[in-house]
């Protein structure tokens, strides 16, 4: 598959502004990141400690009540921001690292290497990923790092595709051809000339992958495959489900808030990612 060398300017003369969607996304992310960072200051109790009677309704001491073993739910959620966001960032880092490497190598080398790598990308996209993750998580055991690695290794296909298509248009630019004509080795050209050109797009992909990773982590934790020593928003919901919180009034303070936080984090990443993608690459503007 060869894409004709299009003379699409990589840097448009006038960039569109980030737009309200992008700013909303950034604001959500900033709020959640600050919460995670200042968790010890913000949370009223230690989330790992039994600080009251179990199954309490919200009160002045426990604004979101207590869980099945008397831990303060608000504190659990504030500390949960740390776990959920870290897993999102690290898994997305692995995914985009693999994706960018594959995308650059495939797009730059072309030929059979491109064909083979893109076949693998298509292949990964066909696999039902959550069942596969459940299988792997069940065998490897529930641990923080296993979850990060498993998500990272399975989410790289989309970034690889996007980066590759960008590489195809960068490859034919004058400065790359000049570098090759001067006798630079392929590896050097990829590292020095191609990588910097696709890095902004890779950043947008990183943010979108992080949004994906947070949702997946929540699903795994909800199925009881999360790390029992690292409480994320998903695992708070797991205990709420196991204790049937949604059958009593407790769902209002035990089920609703963690779900809203997961949604806020996912939306924050998604909005930022989409806006950034549109900002960096006018060709993918979605009319948002």
């Amino acid at each position, binding site marked *: 598959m060869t894409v004709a060398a299009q003379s699409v300017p990589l840097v448009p003369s006038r960039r569109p502004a980030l737009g309200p969607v992008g700013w909303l996304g950034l604001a959500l992310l900033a709020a959640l990141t600050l919460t995670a960072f200042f968790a010890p200051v913000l949370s009223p109790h230690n989330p790992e400690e039994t600080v009251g009677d179990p199954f309490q309704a919200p009160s002045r001491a426990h604004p979101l009540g207590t869980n099945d073993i008397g831990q303060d739910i608000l504190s659990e959620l504030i500390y949960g921001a740390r776990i959920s966001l870290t897993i999102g960032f690290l898994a997305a880092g692995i995914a985009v690292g693999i994706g960018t490497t594959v995308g650059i190598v495939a797009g730059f080398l072309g030929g059979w290497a491109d064909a083979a790598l893109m076949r693998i990308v298509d292949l990964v996209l*066909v696999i039902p990923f*959550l069942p596969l993750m459940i*299988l792997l998580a*069940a*065998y490897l055991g529930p641990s923080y790092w296993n979850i990060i690695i498993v998500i990272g290794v399975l989410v790289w296909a989309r970034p690889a595709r996007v980066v590759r298509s960008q590489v195809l248009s960068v490859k034919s630019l004058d400065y790359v051809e000049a570098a090759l004509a001067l006798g630079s080795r392929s590896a050097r050209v990829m590292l020095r000339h191609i990588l910097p050109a696709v890095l902004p797009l890779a950043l947008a992909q990183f943010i979108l992958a992080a949004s994906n990773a947070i*949702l997946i982590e929540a699903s795994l934790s909800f199925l009881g495959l999360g790390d029992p020593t690292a409480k994320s928003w998903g695992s708070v*919901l797991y205990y709420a489900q196991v204790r049937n919180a949604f059958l009593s009034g407790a769902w209002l303070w035990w089920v*609703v808030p963690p779900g809203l936080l997961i949604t806020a984090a996912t939306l924050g990443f998604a909005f930022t990612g989409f806006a950034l993608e549109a900002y960096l690459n006018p060709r993918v503007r979605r009319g948002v």
Partner: protein
Amino acid sequence: MWRFFAGRGAQYLLVLGLTVTLNFALPRMMPGSPMVFLAGEDVGFLEPQQRAQLYALYGLDQPQWRQFLTYLGNLARGELGYSFQRGRPIAAMIGERLPYTLLLVGLALVLATLIGAALGALAAWRRGGSFDLGTLGVAMLFESVPSFWLGMILIAVFAAGLKWFPIFGAVTAGAALSGWALVVDRARHLALPLATLTLITIPGTYLIMRYSMLAVLGEQYIATARAKGLAERVVLRRHAVRNALLPVATVFMLNLGFIASGATVTETVFSYPGIGRLLYEAVLNRDYPVLQGTFFIITVSVIAANILADLAYPFIDPRVRRR
């Protein structure tokens, strides 16, 4: 076209091969006896006779490559192994659950595609209007909502709160229903899981349809259609929507893998006795043979659905036929 199908076929075979190899290798790579992973954690309680049966079934006393061949042979004969925890063959357990998942997933996919395409077409038609911006916002929101959480909220409001729908299962336990009453009972059990799965699947279709419509509406044949005085509705229906639907067909395929994941979580929340719930139960009980069998069947189903979609594509898009 034949080259296209050959390429696709090779790719699906590869996915299948990968799944099978993973299923074969995982229990044997883990520390400790593979017996634990092949028979489940109750292996210690097995009768010597059952043990011998297991050894024979998996060929555990033979070299690895022979074991792999035995394993492939078993799969080819539909022999997925035996759950010692439940005391039942796995193929029978899966066969029992499969109809529930097919019903749930099939209906959700059709509903989501119809609703998503209709909303997307309308939104693009009124680009920038309040309908467009409103649906776009809601679609982004539902794409970010965890499906299991949506299910829990629906249960809390409509089942536990308003008592319009039952809380779990696929039929009322212990009720001897027949005929119309049985159909109604099943439909009431299906309603909430179906709503959950449909709601989280709509945004993908909606976004693609909207995007594709925007592109089509910029084409010259749309301007021509308008210029020759066709009513707006006719332009929309006959010229715009038909052409914009093509990418939706592609998303339909991609959705198959996505919805298999969504179904796993949704069935778990509603205790709906499908394949996804079986996978979850297997994880809970550390019933590894069932875990593997279920994963294998899910992969095979997704591949089968992909093949169907590939075969249908030339009928949807005549241009593919000529290639």
